[in-house]
């Protein structure tokens, strides 16, 4: 064989990329590298591990000309765990049961208002600025925690992978901007601050709320769980007629 070393390396890549092992290993490596970098940045919301890992992996796949499907053949083993993980969300939600019972009325009304605002305002603004239907359907569940949001997008006929990225961006926006907004609104109650952030910005907002305090974090976690359930129940009935009405 008189192949140049870089050709041989290319051949090795092609061989390895054909087996699920590479996609799976790269996913785990990229994510752990991203978590490390996030810690180095003091957990700043802009250095979100998912966003960093996705950027690195997309760049790597694009640079090597590897199709997404080839990568996903390996990464699907990680992806599969989203289902059982969604079911497992019942356990932290159950831990908030006492809080929920104590303030059920106000919390549920605020949840309904916030949940509808999140989905409808995103769809209306997107429609007004000329987004396509597939984009609008992927945008609608953007305030819901990723596994549920992707399930909703799939059910609606949106693009689950686009939804995954929009959800992460929504989480980062809320985590970065909420403190300023609360200062503007003169809103100091940690329960209110946590709950509103959880409705708008799911898990990433909840992680931010826990940095602020235990009570804000608990209310944020409660809001995230409830909003996931409510949006999953409401959107599939609400959105198709709304989009037909908007034309």
């Amino acid at each position, binding site marked *: 064989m008189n192949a140049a070393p870089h050709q041989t390396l290319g051949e090795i890549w092609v061989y390895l990329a054909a087996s699920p092992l590479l996609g799976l290993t790269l996913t785990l490596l990229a994510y752990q590298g991203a978590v490390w970098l996030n810690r180095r940045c003091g957990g700043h919301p802009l250095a979100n591990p*998912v966003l960093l890992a996705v950027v690195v992996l997309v760049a790597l796949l694009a640079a090597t000309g590897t199709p997404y499907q080839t990568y996903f053949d390996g990464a699907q083993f990680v992806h599969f765990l989203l289902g059982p993980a969604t079911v497992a969300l019942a356990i932290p939600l159950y831990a908030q049961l006492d809080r929920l019972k104590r303030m059920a009325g*106000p919390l549920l009304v*605020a949840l309904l208002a916030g949940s509808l605002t*999140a989905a409808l305002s995103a769809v209306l603004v997107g429609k*007004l600025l000329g987004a396509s239907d597939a984009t609008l359907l992927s945008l609608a569940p953007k305030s819901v925690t990723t596994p549920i949001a992707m399930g909703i997008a799939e059910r609606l006929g949106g693009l689950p992978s686009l939804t995954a990225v929009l959800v992460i961006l929504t989480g980062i926006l809320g985590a970065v901007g909420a403190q300023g907004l609360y200062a503007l609104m003169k809103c100091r109650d940690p*329960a209110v601050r946590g709950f509103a952030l959880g409705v708008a910005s799911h898990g990433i907002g909840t992680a931010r709320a826990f940095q602020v305090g235990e009570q804000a974090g608990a209310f944020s976690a409660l809001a995230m769980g409830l909003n996931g359930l409510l949006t999953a129940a409401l959107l599939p009935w609400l959105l198709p007629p709304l989009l037909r009405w908007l034309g």
Partner: protein
Amino acid sequence: MLAAITLLLLFQLAGEAIVLFFALPVPGPVIGMGLLFAALALRGGPSPALRGTAQNLLQHLSLLFVPAGVGVMLHAQRMADEWLPIVVALVASTFLTIAVTALVLRLLRVHEDEQT
């Protein structure tokens, strides 16, 4: 650990079956989550094994979004074409949602305090 994972998968399976049977537009794992929540409320909480397994699984929840997130490369053209509506919708909707939720909650709680 093994029993807890089996339990989670059973609840997911039950959720998927219910969704198929009643042709519901809701994701199967969400129904599974609702069922497990109901079961926990009836039973008075999760077993230590189930709590531990759930904690392990949810501790690395972010990792599970990565494979789907990478799928955004399939939508590069769409993002390039529609970045303006996407960005404006995300920013406006996120802050509007926080404001509306916080305002409603504040109004309702003040109202309750006045009643009692």
